[in-house]
C-alpha cells in the first residue's frame, strides 16, 4: 500500500476537501518575479490605489475636457461676471470676464498637467542617460558630467526655473525647458549612483568575462538595475514639477492670457479676492489636490518597488 502520509496534512485536506482522496503532489509555490511582487503589493495597498484613481481622474478629465466642458472656456459674457457657484448653469460660477469656471478649470488641467509632467519625462530621459554614461564610463567622463551637475545643484530649484524662463521670456515652451533643466541634475545623480553600484558587482564582471559587449551589458544589466531608482525618483518629482510649473504661470511666465491654466487663473483671479474670494481660491485647490495625490502615489510606488522592505 502506498503511504498516504501527505493526505493527512491539513493543507491537502483543505485543498481538495476530501480525506483519503488520491494523493496529489503538493502544489509548488510559484516564485514571483520582481514585477509580480510589485504588482501584488500595489493591488493590496488600497490607499495608494485610491490616490492613483484620483490622479487618473484628473488626467482623464484634462484629456476629455472638450467632451466634459459644459461651455466654451473662451466665451466671455460681460453681464454674468464673477457670479457665484451654481449661477444659471455655471456649476462653479464665472470668472472676471464671465467665462464658465468649470470649463476653464477642465481645459486648464491640460496646460497645467502638460507643463508639470513633460519636463519630468524629458529630464528623466536626458538626466538618466547622462547619469548612466557617467556611472558606467567613470573617471574623467564621470568627473566632467557630475561636476557640471553640481553647479546646477547650487541653485535653489525655483530660482533656477524662474531665472531661466524669465530670461528666455516666458511662454509654455520656455517654462518647460527651464523646468527640465532644473530636474536633470538630481535625476542624473540618482542614475549615476545606481549605475556605479551595479557596475562593480560580480555579475557584470562575469558578463564581461563571458564576452558580453558594452551594448548588451548596459541593456541587460545596467538599465534593468538603474531604471528602478530613477523611475521612483522621477515619480516623486511630478508633484514638485506641477507646483513649480503652476508657480511659473502664476508669475506670468507660463501660457499667454486667454489660454486657461490653473496657475495663470490663480494670478488673474488674485485681483478679485475682495469681491469673489471662494472663486479666486478654486484653481489653487486643483493644484493642491493634483500635487498631493501625485506625491502620495509616488510614496506608494516607492514602498511597493523597494525590495528591501
Amino acid at each position, binding site marked *: 500500500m502506498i503511504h498516504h502520509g501527505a493526505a493527512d496534512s491539513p493543507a491537502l485536506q483543505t485543498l481538495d476537501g476530501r480525506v483519503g482522496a488520491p494523493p496529489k503532489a503538493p502544489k509548488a509555490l510559484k516564485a514571483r518575479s520582481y514585477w509580480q511582487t510589485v504588482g501584488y503589493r500595489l493591488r493590496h495597498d488600497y490607499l495608494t490605489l485610491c490616490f492613483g484613481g484620483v490622479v487618473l481622474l484628473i488626467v482623464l478629465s484634462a484629456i476629455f475636457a472638450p467632451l466634459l466642458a459644459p461651455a466654451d472656456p473662451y466665451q466671455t459674457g460681460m453681464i454674468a461676471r464673477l457670479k457665484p457657484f451654481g449661477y444659471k448653469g455655471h456649476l462653479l460660477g464665472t470668472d472676471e470676464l464671465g467665462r464658465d469656471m468649470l470649463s476653464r478649470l477642465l481645459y486648464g488641467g491640460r496646460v497645467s498637467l502638460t507643463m508639470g509632467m513633460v519636463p519630468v519625462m524629458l529630464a528623466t530621459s536626458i538626466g538618466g542617460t547622462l547619469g548612466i554614461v557617467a556611472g558606467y564610463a567613470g573617471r574623467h567622463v564621470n568627473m566632467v558630467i557630475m561636476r557640471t551637475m553640481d553647479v546646477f545643484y*547650487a541653485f535653489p530649484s525655483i*530660482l533656477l526655473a524662474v531665472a531661466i524662463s524669465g530670461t528666455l*521670456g516666458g511662454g509654455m515652451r520656455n517654462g518647460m525647458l527651464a523646468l527640465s533643466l532644473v530636474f536633470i541634475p538630481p535625476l542624473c545623480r540618482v542614475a549615476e549612483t545606481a549605475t556605479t553600484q551595479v557596475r562593480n558587482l560580480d555579475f557584470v564582471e562575469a558578463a564581461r568575462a563571458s564576452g558580453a559587449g558594452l551594448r548588451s551589458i548596459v541593456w541587460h544589466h545596467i538599465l534593468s538595475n538603474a531604471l528602478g531608482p530613477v523611475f521612483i525618483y522621477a515619480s516623486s518629482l511630478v508633484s514638485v514639477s506641477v507646483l513649480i510649473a503652476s508657480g511659473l504661470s*502664476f*508669475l506670468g511666465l507660463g501660457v499667454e492670457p486667454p489660454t486657461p491654466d490653473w496657475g495663470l487663473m490663480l494670478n488673474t483671479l*488674485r485681483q478679485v479676492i475682495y469681491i469673489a474670494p471662494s472663486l479666486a481660491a478654486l484653481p*489653487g485647490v486643483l493644484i493642491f489636490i493634483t500635487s498631493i495625490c501625485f506625491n502620495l502615489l509616488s510614496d506608494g510606488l516607492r514602498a511597493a518597488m523597494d525590495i528591501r522592505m
Partner: protein
Amino acid sequence: MTAYIIRRVLYAVPIALGVSIVCFTLIYLAPGNPLQTLLPEDASAETVAMVKKAYGLDKPIPVQYLIWLGRAVTGDLGKSIASGRKVSEEIAKALANTMVLALGAIGLSFSLAFGLGVTAGYLNGSWADRVVTGIAVIGVSIPNYWLGMTLIIIFAVELQVLPATGMGPGGSSTFHIFNPQHLRHVVLPVVTLSMIPMGIIARTTRAAVAETLNQDFVQTLRAKGLKARTVAGHVIKNALPQILAVIGLQFGYLLGGSILVETVFTWPGTGFLLNKAILTRDIPVLQGVTLMLATFFVVTNLLVDLLQTAVNPRMQRH
C-alpha cells in the same frame, strides 16, 4: 579637522565659479542681443560701436566674463536698466527684507516640525505617526502661493485681523522688529513660507529619530537603567546632525525660493525684485539677484557641512 575644512572650502570654489558662469550666460540666453535694451532701434553704426566699447561688448566672451567676474567679486554688479541705481544696492536692501522672512519661517517651521518629528519617530507606526506624516505631506504639496492667497482671504478679507500685503504701514520698505505694525505684516508671509520646510524637517526628524532608536546603544542605555528623558537626550543628540543639515538646506531654499510668496504679499525682498526685473526685462538685476542668491546657497551648504562635521566628526565627506 583643519585639513577637512580647507578641502571642503576649496571644493566650493569651482562650484561658485560654475554658478557665476551660469549667471553670466543668462545675458546670452535673453532673446535679442544685450545692446537692444540699451539702444534705440535706429541707432547709427558709430553709436553702436561706441556703446559696445563702453560696455566692453567688443571683447571676446571669455574676456567679458573675466571682467564681469572681477567686478562682481568687488561688489559691482552693474546698474539697473529700469531704475538706474546700482544693482548691488538694490539687492542689499531686498536681501535684508527676504532674510527677515526666511529667518522667521525657518524658526517657525523648526519649532513646529521638531516636536512633531520626534513624536512620530518615537511612536513609529502608530496613528500619531500617520497624522504627522500626513501633515508633512500636506506641507510639501500645498502650493504656497495659493496658501498665501487663502490666508489673505481668511485673515485680511473676511476676519480683517491682519494686513493683506506690504511690509508696514504706508508702503514701508525697511523692517523694524520692535514696531508692532511691522510685526503684524510679517505674520502671514512667514506662516505661508514655513509650510514646505515644516513638512521636510518633520519628515527628516521622524526618520532620524526612528533610525537612532533602532541602534544598539539605545538598548544599552535603557538596560543601564537611565531615565527615559536622559535616553531621549542621547537619541536627539545623535539625530541632530541630519536635522541640522536639512534646516540649513531649507534656509537656502527659502532665500532663493521666496519669489512666489513675496509676489503674493508684495513683500519688497529679493523675490519681488526678481519678479520686477523679469517684467521690465532688467537683465542686470535678474543676473545680479540670481548670482547673489545662488552664492548664498553655496555658502549656506558649505557652512552646514562644516557645522555638521563639528557636531559629528564621523560625517566627514571624502
